[in-house]
């Protein structure tokens, strides 16, 4: 189980390719992956850049707790969470959640659980740069 905060652009599939260890080969039958990517449009406005502020220390703690909660609910063989912080451009990955399980039902459920909990409880805040200046993203869909 690995949680990483990342200050510069990362390639989610290269990270996944590098992460898959031999030790679990043959044991897992299902991998569910979610990648959240920055869009160039939000609330009808073109967004040129986004800055992701976070609460160092609490962020890592909350992400690790979420992964442990998922592990308690489903039979996870492994999980990887990577989240960007700092300045992000459209098209760049913001977050990667990947889980490895024996069966696909629990892979989908655990992956969904982690991204929803992350979104609603991990201390990240988005500030967008639009044509007219900057604005905090206050709502969380």
């Amino acid at each position, binding site marked *: 189980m690995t949680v990483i905060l990342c200050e510069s652009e990362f390639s989610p599939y290269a990270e996944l390719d590098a992460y898959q260890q031999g030790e679990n080969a043959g044991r897992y039958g299902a991998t569910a992956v979610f990648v*959240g990517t920055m*869009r160039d449009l939000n609330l009808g406005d073109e967004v040129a850049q986004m800055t992701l502020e976070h609460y160092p220390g609490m962020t890592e703690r909350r992400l690790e707790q979420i992964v442990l909660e998922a592990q308690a609910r489903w039979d996870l063989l492994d999980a990887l969470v990577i989240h960007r912080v700092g300045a992000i451009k459209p098209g760049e990955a913001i977050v990667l959640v990947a889980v490895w399980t024996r069966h696909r039902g629990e892979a989908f459920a655990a992956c969904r659980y982690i991204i929803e909990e992350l979104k609603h409880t*991990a*201390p990240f*805040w988005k500030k967008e740069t639009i044509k007219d200046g900057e604005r905090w993203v206050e709502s*969380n869909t």
Partner: protein
Amino acid sequence: MTIRVRYFASLREKMGRIEDTLVAEDIATVGDVWRVVSTGQPLPEQLLCAVNMEYAEASAPVKDGDEVAFFPPVTGGAE
């Protein structure tokens, strides 16, 4: 007692500072901390609080050496 108080995101900008160090004796809860740093304002309903990096209610107790944080609703993850 001494309490470190931290602010994030739009609240940090509104407060005009990233943190306060509170030295006071008449503080029992997170709500008390907010009243001091905001000079008497009630805690806005949508504001979130954490004590030592764990979410906490306004009624949660604080003790010497604690780190208390206030911040707006979180917006991480992805759409």
